[in-house]
């Protein structure tokens, strides 16, 4: 199974801190597609907006394959510093 964490405005818009599901074997882009099917709100915020994805705390490209147990995080462009 995989934990998927959401941050900042993405977390607020989805009204969700995290979900747990089995994403092993999916590419990052496929996981986004799958989450987008939940409803219109998810489609808009997960798929249409600029979303960064980290796998095991490192930024991962769309074609990256998720492994069993990997920690996934999705978030908007960062604004620290």
């Amino acid at each position, binding site marked *: 199974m995989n934990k998927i964490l959401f941050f900042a405005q993405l977390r607020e818009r989805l009204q969700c801190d995290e979900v747990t599901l089995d994403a092993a074997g999916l590419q990052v882009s496929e996981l986004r597609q799958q989450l987008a099917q939940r409803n219109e709100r998810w489609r808009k915020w997960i798929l249409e907006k600029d979303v960064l994805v*980290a796998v095991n705390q*490192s*930024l991962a490209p769309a074609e990256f394959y998720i492994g069993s147990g990997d920690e996934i*995080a999705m*978030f908007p462009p960062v*604004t*620290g*510093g």
Partner: protein
Amino acid sequence: MIRVQEQDFDINQEYQALLNNDSSSGAVVLFVGRVRDLNQGHQVSQLFLEHYSQMTEKYLAQLEQQAMELWPLENVSIIHRVGELKLEDKIVLVAVSSTHRESAFEAAQYLIDLLKANAPFWKKELVDGGKNRWVNANHKDKIAAAQWS
């Protein structure tokens, strides 16, 4: 040295820690980022800094490592605050020591440019006397980071 913390930091203490027993650094560059009153057209009165805690320290440690490989530095410190911040509060410190100033200046700019583009922090501002607003990522910051790659 990497720290992500709620409390403020003391610039003198961080200067001392950076240079502890170091007689060979002739140059030290410190960058401090602060909460300022006007941002993206809004009057800011307060700031909340969210972060992805498992990732921030890991990313900043990698960044420090990269800078040490790219320039002949003696030492690097990065401190980033999270949580509630007031106007004029310090947000971030990047401190670099080196034998010569050119590498200290370049590395400090590299570190803050990459931190702003990639480290998982998000700012939520209290603006215009009551509204909450997530800060928009700045296109200029993407360009600044891209110039190093």
